[in-house]
């Protein structure tokens, strides 16, 4: 007596193989999903209460980052400009622009503007601007060509792999002190040599840069 159909053996084998592959594919998909810009927020442009443009203020007017992000060389936090900083100019120019109404309201009500975070690390990660800016890593290495962004866009994935990639070998990104705020900086042809020399000058200790406790403390 025939209980199974003729192809049953083949079907069972195919199903077994598929059964073995599904979790692998699942892991693969999950990994791809984890790394995709959709998840990491790379290239995300959040909405802001005022359509502030770095392209106009930095690219067009040539303002230095530190005019607004005052504490970037001194502390962990780069610092966000208080409304008063906008008013150093906008008390006299573009005073009636509708676009700037929230800025004037913020000043009148003495309440800070609520910018939406663009770069946002999870709470369990420790990051410090001053350690980077004073040790040869420039703004554009992590924030991209912000002087060309009409609205601020996230220009790096901010995954652990991204940080570690540089922490294993920062020499490829190191710049001389006077080029940290230079938006057009590109690595010179002999960056390998220059970077190695700069790493010595900045006293960068490679060994401890990949310790878990450097970023998770």
């Amino acid at each position, binding site marked *: 007596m025939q209980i199974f159909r003729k192809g*049953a053996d083949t079907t069972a084998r195919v199903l077994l193989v598929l*059964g073995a592959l599904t979790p692998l594919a*699942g892991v693969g998909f999950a990994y791809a*999903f984890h790394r995709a810009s959709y998840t990491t927020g790379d290239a995300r442009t959040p909405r802001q209460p005022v359509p502030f443009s770095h392209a106009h203020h930095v690219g067009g*007017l040539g*303002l*230095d980052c530190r005019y607004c992000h*005052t504490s970037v060389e001194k502390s962990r936090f780069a610092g966000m400009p208080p409304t008063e900083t906008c008013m*150093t100019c906008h008390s006299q120019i573009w005073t009636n622009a509708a676009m700037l109404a929230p800025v004037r309201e913020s000043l009148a009500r003495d309440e800070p503007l609520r910018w939406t975070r663009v770069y946002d690390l999870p709470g369990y990660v420790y990051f410090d601007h001053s350690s980077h800016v004073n040790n040869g890593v420039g703004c554009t290495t992590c924030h991209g060509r912000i002087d060309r962004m009409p609205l601020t866009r996230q220009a790096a994935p901010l995954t652990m792999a991204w940080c570690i990639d540089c922490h294993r070998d920062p020499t490829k990104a190191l710049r001389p002190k006077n080029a940290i705020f230079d938006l057009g900086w590109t690595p010179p042809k002999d960056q390998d040599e220059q970077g190695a020399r700069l790493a010595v000058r900045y006293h960068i200790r490679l060994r401890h840069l990949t310790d878990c406790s450097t970023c998770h403390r």
Partner: protein
Amino acid sequence: MRRTRLRTTPPLVGLAVATLLLAGCSGSMVDQKRYRTFEKAALWRDHSEARQLPDGTVAQSDRDRTAAIETPPPVDAALLARGQERYAIYCAPCHGLGGDGDGMIVQRGFPKPPSYHTKRLRAAPARHVFDVITNGYGVMYSYAARVPPRDRWAIVAYVRALQMSRNAQVADLPNAREKLP
């Protein structure tokens, strides 16, 4: 046939779904129950994480700060270099790199500040420039929050250097006469 599929498929589907769900895991460690710098804070009436000092607080560094305001640091090459850098960040947008009052923001319609190369400002004491940075002047806002006292003196020294660059007497420069053709 039917029995084979029934036995293997459901656990596999379950496993696949569980794997996918894991990817979306984001425990409370991502958003920890603490206020980050400048975060909105419901706890206080002004909804600001950054707390104001209570009235009458005396900071440990207050005496150093007062001293830094009262006594200018000695002028050397390092102080001038610092002044040049800080001037380019905070003053040049309006006063221009040369101090003529023709910076980029003025070109876009901001009221034109006086040139540093006028008799009045050349004769003004260094303390006047320091006070303008600290308190503002007319339509110019105060830069005290962004420029600490030592940097203010560095900027003052650089402004003096700018003024000198256009109004130096040959007699003021040591050995300059011999070097001129």
